[in-house]
């Protein structure tokens, strides 16, 4: 068991598991955000719960952050190792002939998503920390909706950039989500269904995020 973390398959499995975990988080995040379109009060309610609940804040959030960091760091490590495994490069490499673009460019789509996360932290998470711990404002369960909307209202560039990043997230998920099942050793009669589901998920969720951003943008013109 000890040796497991050192082999290529173990690393891949860790990558897949962290990815799946992030997918779960994404689904959860999307569900909450979506309430902002339907019902601002529900949105506020859930956001307040998430922002103040001890378990979420002290346990789940650090796990999430660790997951994100792990996924990225491991992604980079694997990519570097994989590049090294080629040795001398090809003069002509026709990857398009045998594999989808998304599968060959996970590092690129991943980096864009990482950049996006940076922005996202800058936009939401850091202000949130400042709000709660630096400036120590009193607890306000109704601020979340307005704050969220304010980010998009009147800012076509930010909204556009968000949309673009989510397209990259979609590309990342189009390969990554299905791929994680293969890495976990799932390839059987359900594989077709899994493929369809993961593809649908990879498109619907990111596009849903885009929809939310655009919704708030246009709603507040």
């Amino acid at each position: 068991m000890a040796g497991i973390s050192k082999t290529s398959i173990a690393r891949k499995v860790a990558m897949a598991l962290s990815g799946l975990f992030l997918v779960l988080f994404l689904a959860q995040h999307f569900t909450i955000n979506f309430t902002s379109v339907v019902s601002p009060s529900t949105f506020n309610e859930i956001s307040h719960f998430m922002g103040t609940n001890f378990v979420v804040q002290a346990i789940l959030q650090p796990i999430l952050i660790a997951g994100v960091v792990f996924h990225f760091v491991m992604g980079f490590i694997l990519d570097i190792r994989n590049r090294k495994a080629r040795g001398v490069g090809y003069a002509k490499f026709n990857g398009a002939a045998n594999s989808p673009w998304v599968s060959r460019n996970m590092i690129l789509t991943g980096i864009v998503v990482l950049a996006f996360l940076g922005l996202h932290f800058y936009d939401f998470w850091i202000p949130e920390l400042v709000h709660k711990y630096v400036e120590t404002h009193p607890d306000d369960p109704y601020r979340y909706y307005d704050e969220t909307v304010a980010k998009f209202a009147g800012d076509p560039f930010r909204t556009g950039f968000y949309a673009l990043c989510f397209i990259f997230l979609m590309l990342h998920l189009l390969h990554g989500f299905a791929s994680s099942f293969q890495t976990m050793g799932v390839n059987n009669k359900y594989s077709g269904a899994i493929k369809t589901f993961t593809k649908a998920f990879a498109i619907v969720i990111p596009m849903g995020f885009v929809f939310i951003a655009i919704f708030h943008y246009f709603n507040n013109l």
Partner: protein
Amino acid sequence: MKLKLKIWRQEDAQAKGGFQNYDVDGIDGDMSFLEMLDVLNNNLVNEGIEPIEFDHDCREGICGSCSLQINGEPHGPDRRITTCQLHMRKFKDGDEIVIEPFRAKAFPVVKDLVIDRSAFDRIQHAGGYISVNTSGNTQDANSIPIEKQNADDSFYAATCIGCGACVAACKNASAMLFTSAKVSQFALLPQGEVEAHERVISMVNQMDKEGFGNCTNTGACYVECPKGISLENIARLNREYLSASVFS
């Protein structure tokens, strides 16, 4: 037809190597790709130039000797064939063809287009067998019935010819398709079950030691594999490996 060839030449493992351009004429569509290279080599010998070294033996797609990255794809543009089965009718008069060795750190160049694939052999040494003695005191062959589906799947995994196209095609130079075929062949049979855990761990360890990359499931290996070794084998390898790691 007349062709322009751009071919990798390298004196030996230490030498630097580079591309050379050659023209060949009088190529017929019925010729195989290797016969086209024979023509070129014959011309070179006549000019007193050392011919191009490439691996080949059976010339019918079964020994796995021939390799060659042709216009960016292992075994060239056709599917489910090896380079020796690639026919020149796939090309047109005047085409330029870039020919390189399969590239991977674990497959160093020996000379020109010849590479050293002994890494594959070492993976097989590490566990590619069932520990029975060859003494002839085994039980009757029909005393272990094997479900046809499993026998067939094992057979399909075992048809891997060890050519290395999977590694060459993979952007990560990963040997997972090959290793998974070798592991699956035994894992699917009751005879192979006894040592399954040990086998998969040893073979994966050896695969890593050789310096192959990680699988990122691009599927390029399957597309380029002359024998169509299925990606299911990779999933099986992952599964076998996980269960071996957890349970032993």
